[in-house]
């Protein structure tokens, strides 16, 4: 169950030509979710600062 499914790292990235579909999907999703976290945290900090100053 825990055998590396590809013969080499190169194959892992290419995935028999399916890599160009698989990798962008994961990267874009990770990017979107982390932007979600980032933006919220930044806004939260700005807001806390504003309330403290007021």
């Amino acid at each position, binding site marked *: *169950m*825990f*055998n*590396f*499914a*590809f013969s080499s790292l190169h194959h*892992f990235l290419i*995935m*028999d030509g*399916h*890599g160009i*579909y*698989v990798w*962008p*999907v*994961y990267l*874009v*999703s990770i990017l*979107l*979710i982390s932007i*979600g*976290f980032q933006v*919220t*945290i930044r*806004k*939260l900090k700005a*807001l*806390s600062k504003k*309330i*403290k100053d007021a």
Partner: protein
Amino acid sequence: MITSFIHRFSSPKSFVEVTARFFSYVMYLGLFLLATGWIWGLAFAPEDAIQGNSYRIIFLHVPASIFAQLIYFFMAVCALMHLVWRVKLAAYLIKSSAPVGALITFIALFSGSIWGIPTWGTWWQWDARITSTLILFIMYLGIITLHSSFSNAEKADRLMSILVVVGVVNIPIIKKSVDWWSTLHQPASITISEAPSIDLSMLYPLLISISGMGLTLIALGILISKLYIITREKTKKWVQNYV
């Protein structure tokens, strides 16, 4: 009695305080599970006999699709609580879940259509589940736009709850009506009643990714609702003490 019970445990203040206590656990556990599930799925799960390696999108697509719907049902429960018992926190939670729902629905649509290129040879099909997911996405956008177009936030809360409740009735109707078209999708891979049609070495990483995705989204939801609650109640004393 129910009303007083709900009101005692649903003050925005206690929500923010309680969730802050286990926020970091939820987030780190979620990210850890998500990473485990994805690495397992991407690198160690065996190749699919029919679809080849492109099936590996499943570890992202299926969790995203599941939570695209679950978040809406969560919002509908909150909307009922808001309309029936006038629970303020419920409205705050709807408003903060909507962007999370829109985000994950977009990811579900996006990953699905990319996955469609190698498997179906097309990135878009007017198939039942894709169409209903697209409609779900429009519904999320509608809820967000509706709330932000009113200056009186309490009015906006009430109208948004009405829309969410009407929308949740609509979901099964959409499903049934678009099912009338011929459908491209494989039947759902995991069902509770039947034995799963998927190999265990693929099922485990899938289940891990689903739980990881769930916890990560809950963490994001907690964060957004904290931001929103503080924005809404910034004139209250507890907020000024809290920050």
